[in-house]
């Protein structure tokens, strides 16, 4: 499954609703769904604020793959054609320091099993996130309603 959207903050809510449902279907518990939603939201927020610097006509592509190996999870790739930046210039935020901002990349790293920033050959950046159901360390019940069914082969 792939979603293409413009760099508009007002579209974030719809993207979250889509990802929440996809994650629940794959088998993520409620907490896992929430963490995935937040991780992707943080990537999008950074692209809109820093990548496209608030311009509302930048394009963003989000692609989803369900994973069975090494366990059940999801891979999300978020692509843009903004200028390139190097996230290693922004190391782990010192969480003892109280200041607004600088939270997004830390959250992203904490909420995912892996997250990788790469330069797209065609220009722009690609952020690839992986998260697995078993990563979520709580015993909370999965969504009720039999929503925890598989979603193999979501990729278009």
């Amino acid at each position, binding site marked *: 499954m792939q979603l293409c959207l413009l760099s508009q903050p007002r579209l974030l809510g719809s993207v979250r609703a889509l990802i929440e449902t996809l994650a629940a279907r794959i*088998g993520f518990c409620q907490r896992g769904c929430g963490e995935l939603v937040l991780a992707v939201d943080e990537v999008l927020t950074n692209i809109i604020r820093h990548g496209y610097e608030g311009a509302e006509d930048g394009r963003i592509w989000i692609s989803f793959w369900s994973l069975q190996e090494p366990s059940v999870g999801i891979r999300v790739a978020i692509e843009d054609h903004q200028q390139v930046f190097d996230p290693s210039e922004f190391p782990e935020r010192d969480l003892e320091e109280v200041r607004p901002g600088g939270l997004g990349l830390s959250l992203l790293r904490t909420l995912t099993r892996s997250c990788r920033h790469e330069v797209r050959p065609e220009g722009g950046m690609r952020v690839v996130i992986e998260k697995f*159901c078993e990563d979520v360390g709580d015993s909370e019940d999965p969504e009720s*309603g*039999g*929503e*925890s*069914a*598989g*979603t*193999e082969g979501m990729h278009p």
Partner: protein
Amino acid sequence: MTPADTMTITEEQRGSDLVLQPIGDVDLSRSPQMRARLAAALAKKPGRIMVDLSKVPYMDSSGVATLVEALQHCRKAGCGLVLTSLHPRVRSIFEIAKLTQVFEIVDQTD
């Protein structure tokens, strides 16, 4: 992980009635399963089949078609089919399809 597209449908005997309660949206990914469960329920020859829709926030035409088909089978078998506790969205699709008179629809399982 549960297999893809599985929906929970609970079943409870109440006197001679059989109460089926599907849980979750009934769309194309779920209606085949509801169809199978309704057929299995009818095979048990209950007095009536009550379908409790209180946990079905959404249904599309594939779900409605499944219920229409079940109604036809029930009528042939002399078994009642009652739909209970429809969400407003689900009720409105029955209204648009002019099926509120065709089905016995009640507000609650008693």
